[in-house]
């Protein structure tokens, strides 16, 4: 019996040493260690052994079984490892193929600029006011100190609908409407973004439809220095904290004193920042205050107006204003960022 066990061990280990795959391994395991396997078969004959022999043979049998077990598990592990490796190899993908992106659309660049400015002024305690795009002559001109035969009111320059109605040529009528609605209450602190229309032949820098943002503050003791402080803060927020501004005297019928504002701005490729004109502003003309129900002896205010297209062109380096209105997908797509 001892010999048979020894032989079995040699035979089994030899067969196991050349096992090719998991299936064959399992067959060998069954062949030797299964219920009907060779080892079991031999051990069944243990009953015929003497009491002295039995422990000796028993121990030997255990050794044989352990040796086979060890060989089987070693191979099993190897096969599993190889199997895993094969699977991983077969599952390898070409990571250079394109990913599937989350889709994102673009907020229109003009809206982006308007929203950015709105956020700055909301942070400074302003409300956003709105008004009609078809305006009365009174709100668009007369209440802004442009009386009937003022040269700036030429029919040729505006889109009239009737003698008394026109497409607003500026967002300033929203000032007037806000003052009327506030009926003498202070403080007034608003900005009004919106579309305006002027009869202009379209070219790279002119569009008959464009956007403005108007600002208006009225209160007791509003000073020109407040206007300067407000615009400096605004421009620093918009163009960066090292931005500086300067004011130059100018003329608008609805403000006095009036000013043009230049900011320091570094053009693409320029080594040094230069001055660039960005907006017009001034102290609200007393006649404008008066016409909208504010006593100019008691209250003062400032107003400013800024062209959105021009800012957007500067900010993004767009060289043709018409791009904003063509809605070319290849143009819009470039603004698809938060």
């Amino acid at each position, binding site marked *: 019996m001892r010999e048979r066990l020894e032989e079995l061990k040699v035979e089994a280990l030899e067969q196991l040493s050349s096992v090719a795959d998991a299936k064959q391994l399992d067959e060998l395991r069954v062949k030797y260690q299964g219920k009907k396997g060779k080892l079991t078969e031999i051990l069944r004959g243990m009953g015929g052994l003497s009491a002295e022999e039995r422990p000796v043979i028993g121990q030997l049998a255990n050794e044989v079984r352990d040796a086979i077990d060890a060989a089987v598990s070693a191979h099993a592990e190897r096969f599993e490892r190889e199997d895993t490796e094969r699977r991983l190899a077969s599952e390898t993908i070409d990571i250079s193929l394109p990913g599937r992106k989350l889709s994102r659309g673009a907020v229109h660049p003009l809206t982006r600029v308007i929203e950015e400015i709105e956020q700055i002024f909301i942070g400074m305690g302003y409300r956003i006011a709105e008004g009609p795009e*078809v305006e009365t002559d009174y709100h668009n001109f007369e209440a802004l100190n442009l009386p009937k035969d003022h040269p700036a009111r030429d029919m040729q320059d505006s889109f009239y609908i009737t003698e008394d109605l026109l497409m607003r040529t500026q967002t300033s009528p929203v000032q007037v409407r806000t003052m009327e609605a506030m009926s003498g209450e202070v403080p007034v*602190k608003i900005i009004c973004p919106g579309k305006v229309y002027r009869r202009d*032949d379209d070219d790279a820098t002119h569009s008959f439809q464009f956007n403005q943002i108007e600002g208006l503050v009225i209160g007791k003791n509003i000073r020109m220095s407040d206007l300067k402080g407000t615009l400096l803060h605004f421009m620093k927020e918009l163009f960066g904290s090292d931005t500086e501004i*300067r004011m130059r005297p100018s003329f608008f019928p609805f403000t006095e004193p009036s000013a043009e504002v230049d900011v320091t701005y570094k053009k693409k490729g320029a080594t040094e920042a230069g001055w660039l004109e960005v907006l017009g502003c001034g102290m609200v003309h007393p006649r404008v205050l008066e016409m909208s129900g504010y006593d100019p002896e008691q209250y003062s205010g400032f107003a400013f107006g800024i062209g959105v297209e021009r800012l957007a062109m500067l900010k993004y380096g767009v060289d043709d204003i018409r791009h904003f209105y063509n809605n070319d997908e290849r143009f819009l797509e470039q603004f698809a960022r938060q």
Partner: protein
Amino acid sequence: MKVSTQWLSEYVSIEGVTPEQLAEKITRSGIEIDEIEQRNQGVTGVVVGYVKHKEKHPDADKLNVCTVDVGTGEDLQIVCGAKNVDAGQKVPVAVVGAVLPGNFKIKNAKLRGVASQGMICSASELGMNDKLLPKDQQEGILVLPENTELGLPITQVLGLDDAVLEFDLTPNRSDCLSMIGAAYETAAILGREVKLPSIDLIESGSAASEKVSVSIEDESLCSHYAIRYISDVKIGPSPQWMQNRLMAAGVRPTNNVVDITNYVMLECGQPLHAFDADKLGSQIGVRAAREGEVLTTLDGQERKLDPSMLLITGNDTPAALAGVMGGLATEVTDATVNIALESAKFSGSSVRKTSRKLGLRSEASLRFEKEVDPSAVIAALDRAALLLSRHASGSVQHGVVEQRSGQIQEQKITLSLSKLNRYLGTDISMLEVKAIFARLNFKCGDSAQDQLEIQVPTRRGDIMHDVDLIEEVARIHGYDQIPTTVIEGPTTPGAYSKSQAVRYAVRRRLTSGGFHEAITYSFTRPENTQVFTAFSADSHAVPLAMPMSEDRSVLRTTLVPLLLESAQYNRNRKNSDLSFFEIGKVFHASEQKVTIQPIERMMLGLLLTGNRNDGTVGAASRKVDFFDLKGAVESVLEELGLSVEFRADAPDGFHPGRSASLYLKQAPSQRIGVLGQLHPQLQRDYDLDDTYAAELCLDELYSYAAPEIEYRDLPRYPSAQRDIAVVVDLSLEAGKLIEVVRQSAGELLQDVNVFDVYTGDRVASDKKSVALALTYRHAERTLTDEEVATAQQQVVQALEENFAAELRK
């Protein structure tokens, strides 16, 4: 206004200030200087020479060999090709070593074998603008006046060492449409004195009133009309210095009389007109034109006149369009002997209307339109008369013949120092304020405590209120000196209004879903207001009175056609996969003929066309369909916390079987939107592929929108899901099925979804199978199978009863 610094320095010293510095100072004080033009384009070493002899070149017909004296004592031999060169002329000579514009250096040369020691120059070779040269100087060499000093640098003779500042004037600063006005401005900025030109006139002969009379019919159109009579003028060229200044100002010299009127206009800002007195007639009138009258103006055009135009007449015959242009018949010519010189103040709006109507704008009309200084009328007249006596040897007859209404008065305005400082945020002293007004040449009264009375010169018609004076102080003091401060007083909260917040949220939702925001024009073609009439059916489109083109002649009534045109634009550029939205206003008038402001509605438009995915590996692209659009609309509404109903009622412009209207659950009678596939006919009209569009009226949503998030506790007990499939009529809307499921399932039903719709071989051809997933849940306990089964039973029964639905096993 072109301001020659050389000319300017006659009225105010600009010593020690370069043209660039001056331009910067003026710009910073309120008048933008657009450009500084150097009149000398690079001329050096050109001097005045005298042509002693002229001989034909031995070998060239067109060349002459000239002997030229340039005052050095040594004659030069110069070969010249100009036709007009002749012995006895004074000419500009570029001697050897001279440089002409374009860095053209003059060297000793040989022309066809003959040595030439320099070059006789034409005006354009000296870099002068052809268009501004007198007609006789536009060709050939420049022939200088006989009395020009030999050897003098030509730059001095022609006044070329001059920088011209281009004043870009705001409408209020018409006072600077004159050299004297520019001088007052410069003087104020530099703190220097103004020297006014001489008007020491010597009158002679008889009284002008014996020669002419003046009468104004309507003084509201002409408040002052004045004539001086100058006899025995000799027409000829004006002096070189005057021509130089005119050219610097961009005016072409003509003859001494015309040049003098132009010169004085540029100097004083007061336009003048010289009539040939013998052609004009003795009775000069100012009146409105009569219907049917005509006048041939100086430019040779016959103008039809109407009663809105103001005329100057001679013996009641139209002679000139007041303030706009003179008449040809009374023009000053070489034969003119006596001159009636006009200076007047015409109403600005009258001149503007006439010049607009006739499309005639002149230097004169430009100045009258802005209202000339009433004090300048006589001053300019006298100044011109003086110059005519000096440079046209005229004799100025005694007196001015004039009619005027009212007196010239300088306005007095009281300025409060405390208001000034409160207004500007500054701390300027009374002394400084007075000093500033002294610089401006405004007279100040005595200051009483805080108050100062300022007398405004008539040349500054733009100054009417104390705030105008405050601006004067601020700009001379320097806007840079105004500090930056923060608004005082209570702080105010800033925020978007609800409607603004809604639009912001809609934008974010759509862009995060891949939609690009478009902005289209508010003006469109009339055809575009006839389609997609869901919101405009009861209203009228608003036409522009004077559109720029038919394509942009009416205000849009819907966003959809404009989005379709954008799609077309993109399609033509091979961008065929589009997801666009626009938020903007449309305009609906309640009346056919608009008299009141139209209703402006804020709309949201959406457009989808092309393919959904761009076809990367593993994500095959597919065409967009109705449900992509519907999902986008639903996502937007969900974002706003709104629930809606879709009703298949075939809105205008859409495919009747693939479109719907939207109604808010909270306000089910009000249509808030439409969506669908573009009607095939329109799809052809707009030349598009399958396109889907939606339009929602945002104004209707604002009050219902609830953008705030409402949190619900998470469920503690599991749900039970049951799927059923029922066979129903093909035409039955899934929405109806769902409605009945909701009604019949009882309170345990939490959600129901359609997850499949089948038509085909396994059901009858007029039937479809709809698969529904029902989710049941109880908030406080786990459901039993029996409860769920009962609910399911109720559902199946209700579907059978309502729709004769058959349960598919």
